[in-house]
């Protein structure tokens, strides 16, 4: 069955967190349904453990990403605000 195909490490690192969680939930559901064979359920379980570890790692190392649109448009904002990151300031 195709569902036992394992995700590559690169894909694990790249896929959105929520997709990984959804994948983990799917694996749990498949295991709980008991509709897969023994060998495949062991494969699925291993896959689940890998995804779990990847999610944990993602949470541990998560860094908020910030981008800013159309900096020019902010030019009318009062300049100043010392202590604010330079990225928040119009150029």
């Amino acid at each position, binding site marked *: 069955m195709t569902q036992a195909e394992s995700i590559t490490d690169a894909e694990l690192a790249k896929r959105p967190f929520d997709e990984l969680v959804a994948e983990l939930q799917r694996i749990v559901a498949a*295991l709980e349904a008991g509709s897969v064979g023994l060998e495949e359920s062991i494969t699925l379980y291993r896959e689940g453990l890998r995804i779990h570890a990847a999610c944990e790692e993602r949470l541990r190392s998560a860094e908020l990403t910030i981008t800013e649109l159309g900096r020019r448009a902010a030019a009318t904002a009062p300049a100043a605000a010392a202590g604010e990151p330079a990225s928040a300031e119009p150029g």
Partner: protein
Amino acid sequence: MADFAPERPTLWQASSLPPRILRVTDLNRRVRALLDGDPTLADVWVEGEISTPSFPPSGHCFFTLKDSASQVRAVIFREELARSAVRPQHGMAVICHGRVRAYEPQGVYQLYVESITPAGAGDLHARYEQLRARLATEGLFDADRKRPLPRWPRRIGVVTSPVGAVWQDIRNVIRRRYPLVELVLSPTVVQGEAASPAVVVALKRVFAQRGIDLVILARGGGSLEDLWAFNDERVVRTLVTAPVPVVVGVGHESDVTLADFVADVRAPTPSAAAELAVPDGTQLPAILDRLRDRASSALLGGAAERRRVLAAEARALVSAAPDLGAARQRTADLVDRGHRALAARLERHRATLDGVRDGLRALGPAATLTRGYAVARLANGTIVRDPAQAPVGERLEVVVARGLLGTRVEETRSDGGEELLG
């Protein structure tokens, strides 16, 4: 310098017409007396809008009363406040009754309020109510327009001022709760004349972005005028066009702008908007662990279940198996038949052998003797084939078919036996 120091009083004293110099206290007292002497100011009714009321521990309430052009400081003391049916609130249109006096220690005059009654809607409030009613009639605030927020947003647009506490608060909240997202700031001014069109531009800019899952529109607290951009019809109508859900968090809990009404989700503050926008990531490790545990127990339970199924199948297999007793019986029968068949064959062989034996026997000496031949042998049993074996006088036993003849050799010849018989 020391030389000049005494000169000042000298100068003042020397003046023949010294200026009338008042102490500050004298000035304030004079102004106060002036105000106190005005009977109108001693008993006035003033209509205006309450702005930024404060409630210090003293129990008194200080606020600003204003209209579109002017403002005046006002205070209502604890006793009057306790009697008042109306508790001063920001933006509230009221008529205050009291007197005007100067407060000498600070040189300010203010309205000492004795009672407050709600007025008809103030000017801004009137416009606000009018617009709200009109937009509500269009259905822009209807509950069925509200979209649910995505549970796991990946990119969140933020429309707010890039400077100041609000943007900082939003970043902090999301960094703490769910740092897996990307925040896309669409900066704008949020105050003053330019605010409304700027907010519209910032909203449109973020709406045009791909991959934005939801938008936060936020601004810190302020007076009704400060927040006016969020009651602007252009801003409200731009929000209506949002391709993704919008969380609006403007001002404080008590500030409700028209942007709040049209939002998919209304948050009481900017920080609350950020909290509503993302899942609580602090719960995620526990959620993940629960999923892993469920997978484990499903796998183990599956194994146990398989073992049970296997045992049941083994039992079923046994009960479905052929009757071994019967099989054994059949096998025994087969063996018996084999034995019997073999015995019969052996019997046939024996008969054949008997025939062969009889044939062989016919070829043996006994049969030859029967035909009339005899065998001569010496006393020691040696069969005599040559006359030289038995000289004259030697005893010979001649064996014939039916017996034996004891004889003695009288004559020997070596001419060859066969010619002699012929």
